[in-house]
């Protein structure tokens, strides 16, 4: 908890800096990092902690985004103070819709072996995308324009820019996501999730209902993916099915694998890195003229799996890793 508060403080400082810099691009990056962190954390629950292979995370994100966007377009506009409740509520709706989708997809497919789940979730992601492409009510291939987003908050003596308001939503949901997953991880539920990952037969013999456990992980994971989708929709004010394709799912998988499958803090760190990486690669792109991003991602995936499958932190958290480093280098426990 203490560490989370430190992280939030750091995030707040960065927020202020970002806003003061008035550079729209920096602001964009910041919000995207938070959204990606939520996506990575949620996927980590199912891929990392429970060891199931889901390739369709973007599909659940899409469900959340579109449901949230659609709801916001049919309900009437609200006061600048109402928005403080309205947008989190929209995200909640998006999350619940995505969770329902997760339940429908998960229940039949989680009875099957790992490889099949991968294909089914991949299929689901594609089906959602195709369905959305063919639904004119939400814009179809052209996309959904004009999604309402947070507006500046006029307190009279102070005007809080809409960037800050967006940050408040994103960080709010990020905290909920992180805290929930952290608490789950360190509870009987977490032990059940990990046991399913480790050895399903042994887990069953120990009284763990593996199907129920897997479905639960899947539903929670989809919920937060939907929330992330909603945040994305209301920040970007425009969504189209193409942004929720397989490539997006792969982006999230890279974050989870890089950070460490099972490590929540690892996913956050990896999200920061992976979101900012394309920008770091831009000069290279300018020189060579080709988009090497996916080639690099793909090679990293393979190399990571062969050379360092535990990614950055394995299943441990930043806290534990720091502690064992200190022990190793200084030969004593930290104060």
């Amino acid at each position, binding site marked *: 908890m203490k560490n989370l508060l430190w992280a939030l403080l750091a995030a707040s400082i960065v927020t202020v800096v970002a806003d003061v810099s008035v550079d729209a691009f920096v602001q964009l990056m910041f919000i995207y990092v938070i959204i990606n962190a939520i996506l990575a954390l949620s996927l980590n629950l199912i891929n990392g902690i429970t060891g199931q292979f889901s390739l369709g995370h973007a599909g659940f994100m899409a469900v959340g985004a579109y449901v949230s966007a659609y709801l916001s377009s049919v309900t009437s506009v609200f006061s600048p103070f109402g928005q403080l409740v309205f947008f989190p509520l929209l995200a909640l709706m998006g999350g619940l819709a995505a969770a329902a989708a997760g339940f429908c997809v998960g229940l039949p497919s989680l009875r099957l072996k790992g490889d099949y789940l991968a294909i089914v979730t991949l299929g689901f992601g594609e089906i959602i995308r195709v369905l959305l492409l063919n639904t004119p009510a939400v814009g179809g291939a052209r996309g959904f324009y004009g999604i309402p987003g947070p507006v500046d908050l006029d307190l009279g003596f102070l005007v809080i820019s809409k960037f800050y308001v967006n940050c408040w939503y994103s960080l709010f949901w990020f905290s909920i996501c992180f805290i*929930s997953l952290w*608490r*789950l991880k360190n*509870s*009987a*539920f977490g*032990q*059940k999730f*990990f*046991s399913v*990952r*480790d*050895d399903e*037969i*042994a*887990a*069953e*013999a*120990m*009284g*763990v*209902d*593996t199907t129920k456990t897997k479905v*639960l992980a899947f539903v929670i994971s989809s919920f937060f993916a939907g929330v992330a989708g909603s945040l994305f929709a209301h920040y970007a004010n425009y969504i189209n099915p193409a942004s929720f394709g397989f490539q997006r799912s792969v982006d999230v998988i890279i974050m989870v694998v890089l950070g460490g499958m099972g490590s929540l803090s690892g996913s956050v760190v990896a999200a920061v890195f992976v979101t900012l990486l394309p920008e770091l690669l831009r000069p290279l792109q300018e020189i060579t003229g080709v988009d090497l991003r996916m080639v690099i991602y793909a090679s990293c995936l393979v190399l990571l799996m062969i050379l360092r499958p535990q990614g950055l932190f394995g*299943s441990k958290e930043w806290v534990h890793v720091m502690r064992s480093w200190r022990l190793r280098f200084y030969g004593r426990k930290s104060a």
Partner: protein
Amino acid sequence: MAENLLELKNVSKYFGGLKAVDGVSFSLQRGGLFGLIGPNGAGKTTLFNVLTGIYAPTSGEITFDQQSIGGLKASFVARLGVARTFQNIRLFKDMTVIENVLVGSACRSQSSLAATLIQSAGFLRESQDRMKRAMTLLESFGLADKADWAATALPYGEQRKLEVARAMASDPKLLCLDEPAAGMNHHETEQLMTMIRKIRQEFGLTILLIEHDMKLVMGICDQIVVLDHGSKIAEGTPKEIQQNERVIEAYLGPQTDEVYA
């Protein structure tokens, strides 16, 4: 409370044409220590797997604590109070010693999802309890000082003990041990025998074990059931079994007085 904790009536398990278990019947009294023996391939582990819900029986009835459990899912049977260890150790390899034990008790956790997320007082209390009980369990198995070790770092004998500890963590009524002494030397087997006697007494368990080590079986079991080629060929006290002709034949081959004719 009925006398018989577990009753098998004509239980069979066929894999296609292979009759792994064929019409086996016996009962376990509450609080007893039973052995299940027989030559390799007799169907002992298959019977275990049927008992614990990993396989569904092809036919026959299994009644545990007056409830029919034949064909029920393994996790359900486990939660009813049947715990087991495996012939080839199946510890959770990526977890520590204490985490393995905690998984055992996870199925008994009463905390709901909501309680876990808001960390209610009930949840916090239960977490502490579970941790304490896990440590106590480890202490009685002599593993408490290695609680934070990776489970795979334990020496073989202690890994077997950990498996038993993990099975105990779910507070079972019936403990099924599949070859607990496999790979142990004389001294370790003695320790195991003492431990089994102790936990039977301390926790009031009924224990069913598969074993090849005759010293252990004859030494601690009240009743022994002998399987051969899937069928039960004998049942009785250790003394009766040792003198049973069919059992001797099953293990050593037909006893004839003729020398190669």
